[in-house]
């Protein structure tokens, strides 16, 4: 046998060796299309149609990876997605991807793969020391040690962490590939395109169903692609498959998804699939996603995911060169690779005899070791007739070799294989094909909360009852025989079509010729090795996680006897193959240790995903600018052109401040704040929520929503309102204007807009359906420019407004319709700054025009645009609250000192009863106060907490937090608002604000009103 050429990965490559294990002909590879690829720095050749695994085997490369815990050398066990051992890192740079199964990686020109979890190289891995010390590392050893000294744990853990893990992530972190998601609907989703799935899809499609057929492999056909001893309607399997696929492809409402794994089955027949769109291409086109996540809502599903062959559990069963018998047959028949010359087939059932025949036909020497004593049936006869030696009642008790299988020890054993009856003999060999029977892939059925039952004859769990609208078919349904599986598929396809309301097509099952075999294995779960309990070479149950039969016994002894405890204590089934090959063996060995039957021990519940699902595909295009919409106002262009800095407020981007050349944020904000009080400022207030309220009961509705009275508000008048939740806590505020007898215009906070509309609809629809009120969101109908400052009226006049702005004609808290530059506007005389102020609303299409027009008109007055930061300072100078800043869901109007807005006479409003609870009047509730720092230049950080005794030991007795804090250029000093326990009683007193750096700020508790306390500026 030629050993693979070992190199240090990536340093240099050698010329491609011959494909020495490739058969002379046959298989579904395209021998006219050779492909070169690199594994661990060595260049090899394969063919199109190969997987990385088949190509490596063709090149006699069996050592492919290292196990998780003991770093044991591992090869290729299987030929599909159940592979636990052959995990590789594929690709380079930003495109490298760890932990891919070589059995699923399709070969393409230039494919670059590396082995994992080894240092410095696959062959010489220092981590393999763990294997030598494995007797000190049984299951759960880490729970029992690394505790002394306590301070050392982080050091121990550091070592453990670096020893653990499998592959390395990509060297560059930004994934250059594109991933997409798509929704789909169908009458029938068929998961699995083997014989049963194909037949089911065909029958459903012929019955007129919208069908999606998904299979994880590159072509449909499943196991059938690896069988040479079957004919269907007189055709080869490949011929029959091609015919079926062609018929399906010609039907419009059939979607064929090869390379697509159905990985999740959720409530109400919602299934998730990942399609590997370009992974098999050497140079994928840029317009295609690398992978696509399908989210399918199916009326009916047919689960036909086939079955997994089980390994036999014997000493040394993890060596490279020990493979599953079905996989060996697949490599021979589908890939034209013969993975060994001197071979042993070790089995407890008939199926492996087909592998023996295939090996024999391929020219290998074969010995069959069968655990069963009484061998009957045609297959056994055929094997013997081919001159192959068969040992009945024997077992391979130990497999050995250094990095590859070199010899086996064979001995006669008892009925269950657990006890060696007589002296063993040895035999040199380079391939062992084992078969422990089949386990249906019931994962999706179980995800969908279908029930499982134990089949005593087939020794497996198979579906019994379903929970969703779903059918099982074929090997996944415990129907392993090809002929019966096709019939099962046909039946399921018809049943699903019928359940989807269609007329079932009259289709006959094709005629099958296949070996006549028994599907009943012998129960032999743990093969004895002639040593005492726990001794001798390890026999592996979970290959990837290095869980041995002894570990299962240990868990049982220590009381970890529930299946879940076994799983969690030993990590059995927790590896990236999710126990597809180990589950039943582990259960059986546990059952044996506990003296119980397998179904009594139970099985684990399978959960999403069936096989690992790409995170990139789940994220899809919801990344970058498409992660979450960003909403811009209609004046945004101006802000951007004039150098504004922005802040996110919910989904909105709002101008935060407008720095001029060389200005710091503080400089800019100071300038903006001063301008608003000395001449005029202009703010883009378009993002405020606006709700149009209409109906004869509109006023009554507002009366119930807000804490104050609304019935008598005059038309054209505005009023400020505070909205509470029914627990009495402030939820939103804003100004509402009466446009007509039955017509109001409400404004809400920017962040609260959607929530307030929903809140109002909820009350109308669910609690007060008798109220005749309609709500319509007009947030975006209007662009809003707020003009604020002593010159505001003059600027409006300069802008050509066509109404009188005299306070007598247009008083504070009223609204007028007007025109500016010929465009109709609604002007609200309300103020969040305490200055003379106008909120000018205009149809959004003219928002930018209005803004530029006002800027031009205001130029002579030094009109200054101000952002949200200056707006915050200006309102804080006046002691106006911001919901969500002064409040946090635990603040009542009384806490804010706003008793004045809570009606004492209204019989009810939302939150009224809650405010009357005894605890709401407690004097030590947090109350809104102002803070005046002793050092007037010192601005307290927002979020700082106040105490009475700055020298108190920790934990300190905190009074509460600073909610808003700014430098006020108008005051010439710092201002702050705070919510302090019993705050109003502290008025005039001193509090201390300890800083994170140990410093303490001293402040006087004052009224939360710093500027123009008498409100004299409101009329300019």
């Amino acid at each position, binding site marked *: 046998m030629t050993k693979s050429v070992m190199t240090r990965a990536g340093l240099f490559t050698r010329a491609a060796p011959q494909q020495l294990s490739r058969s002379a002909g046959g298989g579904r590879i395209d021998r006219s299309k050779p492909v070169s690829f690199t594994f661990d720095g060595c260049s090899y050749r394969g063919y199109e149609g190969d997987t990385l695994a088949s190509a490596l085997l063709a090149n006699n490369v069996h050592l492919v990876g290292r196990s998780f815990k003991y770093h044991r050398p591992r090869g290729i066990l299987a030929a599909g997605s159940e592979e636990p051992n052959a995990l590789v890192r594929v690709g380079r740079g930003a495109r490298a991807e760890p932990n891919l199964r070589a059995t699923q990686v399709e070969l393409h020109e230039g494919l670059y793969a590396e082995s994992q979890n080894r240092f410095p190289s696959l062959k010489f891995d220092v981590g393999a020391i763990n294997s030598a010390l494995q007797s000190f590392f049984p299951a759960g050893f880490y729970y029992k040690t690394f505790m002394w000294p306590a301070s050392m744990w982080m050091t121990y853990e550091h070592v453990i962490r670096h020893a653990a893990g499998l592959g390395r992530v990509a060297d560059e972190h930004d994934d250059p590939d594109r991933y997409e998601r798509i929704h789909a609907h169908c009458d029938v989703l068929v998961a699995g395109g083997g014989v049963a799935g194909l037949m089911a899809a065909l029958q459903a499609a012929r019955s007129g169903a919208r069908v999606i057929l998904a299979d994880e492999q590159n072509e449909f056909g499943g196991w059938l692609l690896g069988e040479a001893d079957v004919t269907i309607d007189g055709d080869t399997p490949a011929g029959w498959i091609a015919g079926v696929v062609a018929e399906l492809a010609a039907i419009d409402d059939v979607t064929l998804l090869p390379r697509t794994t159905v990985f999740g089955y959720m409530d109400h027949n919602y299934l998730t699939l990942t399609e590997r769109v370009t992974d098999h291409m050497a140079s994928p086109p840029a317009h295609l996603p690398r992978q696509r996540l399908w989210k399918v809502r199916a009326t009916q599903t047919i689960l036909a995911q086939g079955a997994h062959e089980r390994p036999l559990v014997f000493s040394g069963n993890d060596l490279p060169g020990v493979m599953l018998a079905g996989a060996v047959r697949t490599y021979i028949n589908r890939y034209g690779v013969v993975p060994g010359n001197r071979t042993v087939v070790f089995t407890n059932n008939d199926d492996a005899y087909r592998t023996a025949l295939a090996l024999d036909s391929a020219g290998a020497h074969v010995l069959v070791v069968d655990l069963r004593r009484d061998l009957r049936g045609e297959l056994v006869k055929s094997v013997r007739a081919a001159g192959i030696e068969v040992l009945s009642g024997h077992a391979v008790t130990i497999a050995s070799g250094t990095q590859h299988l070199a010899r086996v020890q064979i001995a006669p054993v008892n009925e269950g294989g657990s006890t060696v009856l007589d002296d063993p003999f040895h035999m040199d060999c380079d391939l062992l094909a084992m078969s422990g029977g089949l386990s249906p892939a019931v994962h999706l059925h179980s995800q969908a909360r279908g029930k499982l039952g134990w089949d005593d004859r087939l020794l497996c769990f198979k579906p019994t009852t379903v929970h969703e609208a779903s059918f099982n078919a074929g090997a996944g349904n415990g129907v392993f025989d090809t002929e019966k599986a096709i019939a099962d598929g046909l039946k399921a396809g018809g049943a699903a079509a019928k359940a989807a309301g269609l007329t079932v097509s009259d289709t006959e099952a094709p005629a099958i010729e296949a070996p006549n075999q028994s599907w009943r294995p012998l129960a032999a779960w743990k093969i004895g090795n002639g040593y005492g309990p726990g001794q001798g070479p390890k026999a592996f149950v979970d290959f990837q996680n290095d869980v041995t039969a002894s570990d299962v016994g240990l868990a049982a002894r220590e009381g970890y006897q529930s299946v879940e405890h076994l799983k969690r204590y030993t990590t059995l089934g927790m590896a990236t193959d999710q126990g597809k090959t180990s589950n039943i063996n582990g259960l059986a060995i546990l059952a044996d240790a506990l003296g119980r039957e397998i179904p009594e021990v139970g099985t684990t519940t399978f959960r999403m995903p069936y096989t690992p699902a790409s995170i990139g595909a789940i994220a899809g295009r919801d990344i970058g600018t498409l992660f979450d919409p960003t909403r811009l106002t209609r004046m945004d*262009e101006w802000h951007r052109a004039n150098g504004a800095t922005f802040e996110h407020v919910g989904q909105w981007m709002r101008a935060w401040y407008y720095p001029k050349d060389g200005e710091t944020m503080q400089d800019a904000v100071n300038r903006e704040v001063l301008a608003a009080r000395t001449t005029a400022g202009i703010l883009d207030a378009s993002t405020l929520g606006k709700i149009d309220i209409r109906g004869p009961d509109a006023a009554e509705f507002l009366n119930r929503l807000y804490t104050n009275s609304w019935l008598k508000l005059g038309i054209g008048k505005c009023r400020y309102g505070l909205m509470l939740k029914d627990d009495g806590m402030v939820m939103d505020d804003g100004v509402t204007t009466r446009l007509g007898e039955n017509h109001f215009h409400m404004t809400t906070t920017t962040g609260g807009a959607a929530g307030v509309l929903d809140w109002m609809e909820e009350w109308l629809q669910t609690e007060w359906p008798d109220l005749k009120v*309609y709500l319509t969101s007009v947030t*975006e109908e209007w662009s809003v420019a707020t003009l604020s400052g002593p010159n505001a009226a003059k600027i409006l006049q300069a802008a050509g407004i066509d109404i009188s702005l005299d306070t007598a004609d247009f008083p504070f808290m009223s609204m007028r319709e007007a025109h500016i530059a010929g465009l109709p506007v609604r002007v609200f005389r309300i103020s969040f700054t305490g200055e003379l102020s106008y909120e000018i609303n205009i149809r959004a299409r003219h928002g930018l025009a209005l803004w530029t027009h006002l800027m031009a008109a205001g130029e002579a007055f030094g009109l200054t645009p101000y952002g949200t930061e200056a707006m915050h300072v200006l309102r804080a100078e006046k002691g106006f609250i911001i919901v969500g800043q002064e409040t946090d869901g635990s603040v009542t109007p009384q806490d804010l000192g706003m008793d004045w807005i809570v009606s004492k006479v209204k019989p009810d409003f939302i939150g009224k009863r809650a405010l009357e609870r005894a605890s709401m009047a407690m004097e030590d509730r947090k109350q809104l106060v102002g803070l005046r720092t002793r050092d007037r230049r010192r601005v307290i950080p927002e979020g700082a907490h106040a105490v009475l005794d700055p020298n108190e030991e920790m934990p300190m007795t905190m009074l509460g937090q600073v909610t808003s804090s700014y430098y006020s250029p108008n005051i010439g000093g710092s201002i702050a608002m705070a919510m302090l326990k019993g705050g109003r009683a502290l008025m005039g007193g001193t509090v201390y604000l300890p800083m994170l750096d140990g410093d303490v700020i001293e402040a006087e508790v004052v009224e939360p009103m710093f500027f123009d306390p008498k409100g004299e500026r409101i009329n300019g």
Partner: protein
Amino acid sequence: MASVSNEGQRPPGRTALTDMTVMTHDNPDGGKPGLVITELAHLGKINLRGGSDMLPVISNHTGCSALPDNNRVVSVGDRHIVWLGPDEFLLLCAAGSETHLHSQLTLDMAGIHAAVTNVTDSLCALSLRGKAVRRVLAKGCALDLHSSKFGTGDCAQTMLAHAAVTLIAHDAPGFTLVCRTSFAPYVTEWLMDAGLEFGASFRG
């Protein structure tokens, strides 16, 4: 465009996508793009809330004889009444005609409990045409858009990725999509991105 009031003398103003540049992804297979996006600039939109007693008034101004059934659109000429909910409809009309229509409807409905709201600037309407429209929409919309399930005259309020949209299916392989104005740039960017594999163009 109806020449009512003095709309014509005013600047038409800006739309949600005025600043969006024309974009094209070529169809990788050659030929026409699978998705062509056009903004229906200033398409008139009036939100109607009220019961069946609105019908005579609506009828009078649109010519429709009945309000649409659930999930359906009623069209007469360039006026379309889109069902939004049990007592809610969206009336689409030619650009510029909405102001007059709005005031007429408001006036005529004075006696009944109804709300007529001009939402022309609140919402943005896009025309989506091309062979791949349904495939592209399926990437962000969970509705079954198969032509047998969502055909001519059907409409739905739903989600397209992270945006709330109203979809209206027309006879040709085309849809009208209506969304909040501030979501229009996101929706357009999303559609162009989703259309990459079929070719897509935004024509402004």
